[in-house]
């Protein structure tokens, strides 16, 4: 490595002569193979990102299948690059100009042409077959159409609605909805209906599976499975991203996925379903906050999880579980200070968001009160 850097700087600083440059290129030729191997080692090493976010640390069946295909393809591509690389290095080392002789002018070689046409065709077939099989596997959402006697599906279905710049997750079979933090059970297929309410977004949980766009004119469908062991490794929180440019705060449209065992998930659903009325705050400061909330915020933000309001009226994230969410506004750490920061000036935190300018300036007392109220919005209890 040191010699590599030495060579590199020698070429920059040394006075350029033809001989000097040629000599250095010869030295570099040796390093090409070494660097190729170094890259291979780098790729296979622990440079695999964070387990809650990286596609290289699959935490579910879909991501695992995609990862396996990715690795398979990469190995074959390495093989191809090795073949080309060997010819390339030989050519550069062996056929440099030594004299003024005109080399033999070769028209071509039928044999070689056939070889390097047929082998790539075979390689393409080798990729194509697992790809097509996997495509149909990943697109299999038949379980979403199978309705039982109650008119519901046996499988868990989540309706994802993407908005500028927040996510809504509705559970049609359970009759509840939430925002920003998607709660799912582990070790079973979860099915998704995907749509957007304003512009095109894209729903992506990198560690768990590939993405699918949320369009404005049609519903897309996909399934994911969340592995319980991998979920344990990340404290049950996976990171979700918006993956289609949707405006200035596209970068800030993160959501979180809480992947918990089925029993806990059922409990959460039960707790949510039990909330029929807005929970009344008990502390005086929080009560003040609730008063302010009911005069203004409640016009867009619901604090009950029933999915009975029509979609067109659900203009802002549902805040039933705000107090126990991972982040504020999807991106800030979940602290009182950050809640106040967000409420005081949302435009600075998320430029272009739809809450900016919908209410007047809040006094510090109002901010304290609202924060106390919002932080108390929970369904899991202490």
């Amino acid at each position: 490595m040191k010699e590599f850097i030495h060579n590199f700087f020698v070429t920059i600083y040394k006075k350029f002569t033809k001989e000097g440059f040629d000599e250095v290129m010869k030295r570099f030729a040796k390093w090409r193979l070494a660097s190729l191997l170094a890259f291979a080692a780098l790729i296979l090493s622990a440079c695999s990102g964070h387990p809650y976010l990286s596609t290289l640390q699959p935490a579910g069946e879909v991501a695992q299948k995609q990862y396996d295909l990715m690795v398979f393809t990469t190995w074959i591509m390495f093989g191809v690059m090795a073949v080309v690389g060997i010819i390339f290095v030989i050519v550069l080392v062996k056929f440099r100009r030594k004299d003024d002789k005109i080399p033999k002018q070769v028209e071509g070689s039928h044999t070689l042409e056939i070889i390097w046409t047929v082998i790539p065709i075979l390689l393409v077939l080798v990729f194509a077959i697992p790809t097509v099989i996997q495509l149909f596997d990943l697109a299999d959402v038949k379980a979403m159409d199978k309705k039982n006697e109650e008119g519901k599906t046996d499988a868990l279905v989540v309706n994802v609605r993407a908005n500028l710049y927040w996510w809504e997750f509705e559970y049609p079979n359970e009759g509840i909805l939430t925002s920003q933090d998607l709660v799912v059970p582990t070790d079973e297929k979860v099915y998704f209906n995907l749509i957007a309410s304003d512009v095109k977004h894209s729903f992506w949980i990198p560690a768990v599976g590939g993405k699918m766009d949320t369009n404005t004119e049609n519903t897309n469908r996909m399934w994911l499975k969340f592995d319980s062991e991998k979920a344990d490794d990340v404290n049950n929180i996976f990171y979700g991203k918006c993956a289609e440019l949707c405006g200035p705060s596209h970068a800030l449209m993160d959501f979180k996925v809480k992947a918990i065992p089925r029993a806990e998930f059922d409990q959460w659903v039960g707790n949510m379903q039990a909330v029929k009325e807005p929970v009344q705050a008990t502390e005086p400061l929080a009560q003040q906050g609730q008063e302010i909330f009911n005069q203004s915020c409640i016009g867009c933000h619901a604090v009950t999880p029933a999915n009975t309001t029509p979609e067109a009226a659900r203009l802002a994230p549902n805040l039933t579980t705000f107090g126990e969410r991972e982040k504020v506004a999807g991106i800030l750490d979940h602290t009182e200070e950050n809640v106040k920061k967000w409420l005081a000036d949302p435009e600075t935190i998320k430029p272009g968001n739809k809450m900016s300018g919908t209410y007047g300036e809040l006094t510090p007392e109002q901010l304290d009160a609202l924060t106390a109220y919002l932080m108390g919005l929970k369904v899991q209890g202490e």
Partner: protein
Amino acid sequence: MSTMAQKKGFGAVLWEYLTTVDHKKIAHLYLIAGGFFFIVGGIEALIIRIQLLKPNNDFVSAGLFNEVITMHGTTMIFLAAMPLLLGFMNAVMPLQIGARDVAFPFLNSLGFWLFFFGGVFLNLSWFMGGAPNAGWTSYASLSIAQEGHGIDFYALGLQISGFGTLMGGINFLVTIINMRAPGMTYMRMPLFSWTTFVASAMILFAFPPLTVALFLMTFDRMFGANFFDAAMGGNTIIWEHFFWIFGHPEVYILILPAFGIFSEIFAIFSRKRLFGYSSMVFATVLIAFLGFMVWAHHMFTTGLGPVANAIFSVSTMAIAVPTGIKIFNWLFTMWGGSIKLTTPMLWAIAFIPSFIMGGVTGVMLGSASQDFQYHDTYFVIAHFHYVIVGGVVFALFAGAHLWWPKMFGQMLNETLGKITFVLFFVGFHMTFFIQHFLGLWGMPRRIFTFLPGQGLETGNFISSIGAFLMGAGTIVFLLNVVITAVKNEKVGNDPWGDGRTIEWGIPSPPPFYNFKQLPLVRGIDTYWIEKMEGRKELVPAEPLGDIHMPNNSFIPFMISLGLFIAAFGAMHHGDQGNTWGLPVLIAGLVITFGSMLTRSLKDDHGYHIHKEELIDDEDKGVRA
């Protein structure tokens, strides 16, 4: 009219360039304008990388960042890469096929001025309310929702530029079909002329869908139509289809001429003819054909369904086959040859591993189920920069060095050329290699910042440093251009010594009529054949006679200016309280159609250079 170069004043030179219909001067115009926009796009790239140097950076705001990424992509593809390639095609192709100019010199000039005014119009958006901000792909739901005129600048600017490109495509096609020198069959044409031919055919068929898409966008935004408004029955996926039916062939339009440039370079600097010429031609045509059948691989996550995704996935991966054929043929051109590492050859050699890396990630992206993870992440950004920079930009630097003497009569400095190469090459890999991983680690594209603690800091930092090295390399290249111009050392017709094709058999730069007598073509690599048989010049195919030349004209400039003016009217006529929009739109169109009518009503027979003047030149011209 004397054929000798006259000492001209600045005003005369300016007027000459404003009215020229000479393909060689138009090439200069394309190179200057394209080079200028390349710098603009490069500055936009540096702004992006500075903003992404660290998490939660505030070098530019979120809104401005979206404008910068949009303009970076749009400028680089439409206003830098395409025009620079068109510049080389203009400068070199007619010479390579032994023609005196292109088929339609007037249209050639019109093509340039339309591109120029379209590009200027688009970039005026920076100063007139904000640049477009929906990405260079301008997907319909986001772009329709944009208030302000940014997207209008995009739609109208690209429409005007696109007309110019379409004209260029038709022009080159007819030139190659009708005007090859005697003896030049199709299978004796140099590869660069072949790739010009095939790319021009692609332009002819790929640009109309973009034209339609831009009209639909213009109508929706400025005239109340409902193509993309879901509430009124519209559908935004139509835009995606049209854009990519254009957009995918577009990237092959960019890469095929680049391949052509490298084919010339490998042969020249290995002193060996291109290995597998017929296979190379076949592979070029196959890539062009397949290029029209893969567009939905940009839409795998749109929700077209597994059948559509499967079909497009297989057809996408199939393009690896003809591309691989080309790589092997280049390697075997060098095999057994006598390789000289000049600056163009360095770029060509560096292109092979760089482009292959981009190509293999392309195959991976083409596998649709994997693409669900890669799509819209930095993995895609890494892939396309590897193929576009490692393919097209390398070819542009290589072609610039190779043909500089032929276009300007001087050689660029080899030492500075090699410094440019090292800086740019190292910077390029440093910037883009790590981006493959950033994408795999979960970083979407088109994000103005990234949050701390998600594992993205180091990669972005390294990537940003690399960008500055590329900038440094580009600056060294510009210095090279200036120093070369100042030094003004003339060279002969074959300064590299190993030229194989016709352009190296005529003076550097060529006389404005190119050939006193059209050359006789006796095989592939015409000039090489003559050199190997001991001749210093090309064999003439006709006796010395009068040469018919086209007249200069200011009308192309006027036609383009009219559309430029009309675009302002179209954009603003719908604004609240606007009164001047419609009159300006009409006035602009009157200028355009009026100029066209002026052109059509007069007879324009050109002029003739008489035989006697050509004989005079014989004694005074520069000979290699």
